[in-house]
């Protein structure tokens, strides 16, 4: 899209030498990062923030290309067919694995080679501020005492969040009605007007209502507490063995040399440590979780296997 030229123009000025130890230059002058999200969407914003900080470190020009369509399958296909010379990568989220499992496109998640996992997106469970529940434990106790009475909402059907609530339902035997919506907006209205007892989503999506004190966080569904919400207990601490992992990373075409992967790992580590970027991603409550190529490969494979098993178990895919 437009971005390719504008960014190339903006950054053509200086070719900053690559960082200390690796004196080797990156093999291509311009790297195109492809996302399935439209401009302004989650992965799009992630990439544009990232390249602002990566550009001086890696000394190459970056372009972001929004390839929509096919729930991400079109973008994956585009990258899978690119040359494995480090010139094109895809911004991964759990979506690309889910699309592969749900519709089995020609090019699935396994036709790309994971390059890195950069962030984890923490998910929180929340309710409206008028609700009697103060913590997740309150809500769970109420749900256990009144099976079949509570109503929970998640953004999209067959999304990770929806699956998480279904799991929670089984864990505590609440028999709650779990309703899926079209994106976060619908969901928020139904939490605010009291139609739903609980909602689940990323902090970024609910930030406006949180700041205005219209909703209350009940628990976070991660392994550890969040640095910017130290008082918010995890679901596990509150007696619900539930962890949702949503990741942001990069993947490229298969057959890319190891040196390129190593250069990315290096650069990403440097960028994540830089104070300017830290301030940026902390504001969005993103948790840095850098994994290099080998780790990312293993992580992605495990993640996909787990999702596939869950989807099969729930009967969404055969």
């Amino acid at each position, binding site marked *: 899209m437009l971005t390719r030229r504008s960014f190339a123009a903006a950054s053509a000025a200086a070719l900053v030498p690559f960082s200390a130890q690796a004196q080797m230059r990156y093999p291509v002058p311009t790297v195109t990062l492809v996302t399935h999200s439209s401009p302004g969407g989650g992965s799009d914003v992630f990439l544009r923030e990232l390249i602002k900080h990566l550009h001086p470190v890696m000394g190459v020009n970056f372009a972001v290309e929004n390839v929509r369509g096919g729930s991400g399958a079109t973008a994956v296909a585009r990258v899978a067919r690119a040359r494995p010379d480090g010139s094109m990568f895809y911004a991964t989220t759990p979506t690309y694995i889910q699309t592969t499992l749900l519709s089995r496109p020609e090019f699935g998640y396994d036709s790309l080679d994971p390059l890195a996992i950069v962030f984890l997106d923490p998910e929180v469970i929340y309710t409206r501020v008028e609700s009697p529940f103060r913590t997740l434990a309150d809500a769970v106790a109420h749900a256990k005492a009144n099976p079949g009475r509570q109503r929970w909402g998640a953004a999209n059907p067959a999304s990770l969040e929806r699956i998480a609530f279904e799991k929670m339902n089984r864990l505590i035997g609440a028999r709650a009605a779990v309703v899926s919506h079209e994106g976060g907006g619908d969901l928020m209205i*139904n939490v605010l007007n009291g139609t739903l007892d609980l909602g689940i989503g990323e902090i970024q999506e609910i930030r406006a209502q949180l700041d205005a004190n219209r909703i209350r966080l009940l628990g976070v569904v991660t392994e550890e507490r969040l640095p910017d919400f130290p008082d918010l207990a995890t679901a596990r601490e509150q007696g619900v063995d539930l962890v949702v992992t949503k990741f942001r990373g990069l993947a490229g075409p298969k057959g890319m040399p190891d040196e390129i992967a190593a250069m990315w790992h290096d650069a990403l580590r440097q960028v994540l440590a830089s104070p300017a970027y830290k301030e940026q991603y902390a504001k969005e409550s993103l948790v840095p979780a850098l994994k290099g190529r080998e780790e990312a490969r293993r992580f992605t494979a495990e993640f996909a296997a787990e999702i596939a098993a869950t989807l099969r178990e729930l009967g969404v895919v055969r």
Partner: protein
Amino acid sequence: MGAFTDPWTVATAFGGVLWGILGGALPGISPSIAMALLLPFTYGMEPIPAIVLLASVYVGAEYGGSIPAILIRTPGTNSAAATTLDGYEMARQGKGGEALGISLISGLVGGLFGLVVLVLATEPLARVALAFTPAAYFGLAVLGLSVIASLAGGSLTKGLIAAALGLMVATVGTDPVSGVPRFTFGSPELLGGIRPILVMVGLFAVAEMLVQIGEPEWAKVEARDTRLKLPSLAMFRRLLPAQAIGCGIGTFEGVTPGAGGTIAAFMAYNEARRWSKNPDAFGKGAPEGVAAPESANNVVTATALVPLLSLGIPGSNSAAILLGGFLVHGLTPGPLLFERAPDVVWGLYGGLLIANIAMLLLGLVILTPALWLVNRPKPFLVATILALIVSGVFAIEQSLFDVGLVLVVGVIGYFLRWAGVPVLPLVLGVVLGFMLESNYRRSLVLSGGDHRVFIEDPVALGLLTAAVLLTGFSLWREFRRNA
């Protein structure tokens, strides 16, 4: 209101409106696509001009969609579909210039009215948006579908076939509750559903071209009617009731997230006809039939911002892109926006006012060449329109699959015309089908399968009652006219 004194903001408003009109007029480029194409440019801008630019594109695009709707019977945007009814009929009678003038002035009336509502009544209207439960949304969708009874033209039976076909199209894609793929035949392109704009372009534009190429005598527009004509004062007075209906319905549909300009335009058209002294003139080139939908969908450009600004909830694709524009500049729309960044809110209001003025001025400049263009020799006109269609449709998702899909819809539209089936009920089915089904099922999940939820929710009950009354009224009128 510093927006007026800042030449940069004024310039971005004009630029945004110009881009929006052009994008909206291109079949396939919807308002949200036109905005998305510009969004990356705004990243480097100051917050106020950036937001004003995106909002101006929205204003321009909603208006621009009416130009091809009137001139070539092809709505450039979803919400201009209702305008084809009387707008194209006027153009065929050689009154295309007048229809364009009416659409421009009605769009201006709607845009300004919406802006006043936005400035004065955001807080109470946000409460209206919050009162909408899934059951209420189901009621709203049924109310929208009730328009079919009067859009079906001659045959209600054929109208029902068309509506059912539209509902079928709307069920393609991921199931709204369980997430299983439905009717996708394993194609990832269909997983996200079929965009209504693709159906519109195929059903109107492609089908129209297929029909026209086979007509021995091509419909001719007389050369002397190529002048833009703004409505006279008497005409303006005559159009006021229709515009008022459009403004009222547009306000209501704009503030309820998810409803949007398309339904507003259809309902406004229908109500303008119902309350008209001369309802039989509608569909035969009634100026009110252009004024009502065009004021309604331009009101929505302002009132759709109510849930976005006050709750941080985007009610449409276009509003979602605007939300992206806010977020990139570190602004979070929502309850606190008015306290934290009042300058941005007021800058946006000022920008919207400028955008509406820009729409009038640029409209006056653009419409004359547009009229000239559609009066070129037919072979070149047809070739250019089809080149625009295949390019514009590809641009939406960079997908040749979509271009093929539009051709398939075009062939279906061709046969529907041959069989005398009205296409507008089909459009309505496509636009409303998803909202209807997902909220019906959500409501039942919430109530544990109890259908009483639709009566116990006061908003749902009111909307469903209105739907029944309006349908009954329409059927009775059709029956009396035919008897």
